[in-house]
């Protein structure tokens, strides 16, 4: 699930459950998810070799 899709679904669910106070917390969590995913700590089938490689540094 992409982070954008996750956020849309989570915000709607929180609203449905009567927890609108979660909105800023969910948006903040989405930001950390993007950061974590961008680091590339795990292998990805989308990579040419599809194997786990060393994590990229932030500057890359």
């Amino acid at each position, binding site marked *: 699930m992409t982070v954008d899709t996750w956020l849309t679904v989570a915000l709607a*669910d929180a609203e449905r459950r009567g927890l609108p106070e979660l909105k800023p917390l*969910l948006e903040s969590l989405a930001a950390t*998810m993007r950061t*974590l995913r961008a*680091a590339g700590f795990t292998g990805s089938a989308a990579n040419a070799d599809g194997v*786990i490689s060393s994590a990229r540094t932030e500057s890359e």
Partner: protein
Amino acid sequence: MTIDEFGGSLRAHELTALDVAEACLERIEAENGRLNAFILVMADEARRQAGEADRALAAGRDRGPLHGVPVSIKDLFDVRGVATTAASRVREHHVAKTDAVAIAQLRRAGAVIVGKTNLHEFAFGTTNEDSAYGPARNPYDAARSPGGSSGGSAISVATGMALATLGSDTGGSIRIPAAACGIVGLKPTYGEVSLEGAVPLSTTLDHAGPLAQCVGDAWHMLQALRGDEQLYPLAAAELRGRRLAVPRPYFCDLLDDEVRAQFEAALDLLRRAGVQVEDSTIPHAALTSPIYLQIVFGDAAAYHAEALERAPQLYTTPVRLRLELARYALAEDYVRALAGRETLTREVDAVLADRDALVLPTLPIPAPPLGATSVDVGASKESVRNVMLRLTQLFDLTGHPAISLPCGVTRAGLPCGLQLVGRGRQTEALLRLALAFEELLTAATERGQIG
């Protein structure tokens, strides 16, 4: 009075265990209304245990350094016959049938339990203000947080309500309140002290360990908690020739000016003592918080989901919201975080491969005011929660042993803390170094070189 001072006087028949237990109970009676350190005071039980300790010693049965020592227990650990509330109404009707393993070890070592201490509800916070039993307060300024989540435990030792205490640390919950209250806090190596019989926050990251008045006391507590058979006093390491690494990027980017000044003064002391202090880098340190969050959220959500469905109103609102947030975390991000944790562990190991320890501040700010959600750090405004966890949570991820030592006070009289992080599974070596550094810091404080 330290544990060794107590033991010396006890065995010289200058006082009894009951005398000291009574003194702690009197201090609790006098100060607990103001500081709210205890959820449960076990006065009758403490007197009974202390009397037994005195009779055992008179009969020649000496259990070692913790014999007759009054200790407090974070109310996250089962003590048989009383509730383990975790500072939450969710657990108000709970009664522990047996002792947690760590409690059984303390009893075996002769410790006297004076009561159970306040904490941030379910240990899910750093300020100790979200508790079903009301906020705990900093003994140096009651309008400020004592740090958390083991805030009541830290207060109890800082004010003489107990000589030592048992806490837990998932993102810094032993070291943060130790720094905020001016005492020593030890997070041992991951798994070194049993958590069986403790309410979890994150079984992947939780650590149990002591808060104490000094490094030597923390060592006595650690030996008891591990169930060591051979008990011996800690010997200080030789400081000259040691190599310490200061991980400046990330860890020293965001520090209160007075905390920074005390930290740099401490580094100068080390250099003058012949220690090689070298700057270093942990390449992915800035990713600590995103990695940490996913793991804690996944673990906490699994534990709390059912209670959140059944009785969400029993949680304090801030903790309930954070737990509800945790339930939205995704499995794929948990796996990414576990992989990130491995990377961070390798990076810390690499820095420590040819150094004795990392040295860094414990808490980037002095104890924040109760009720504050943000705090100014230099030119920036930061979330209190994020900034309080910033320097400690990495080592819960990596499992390295870490200790916070008192390191001066601000102009307003608020304590600062300094953190030493040792090599994996080498807690005793870390404590030997910490003991030597403590002696240096104490002498410097007496000379006025540290505030």
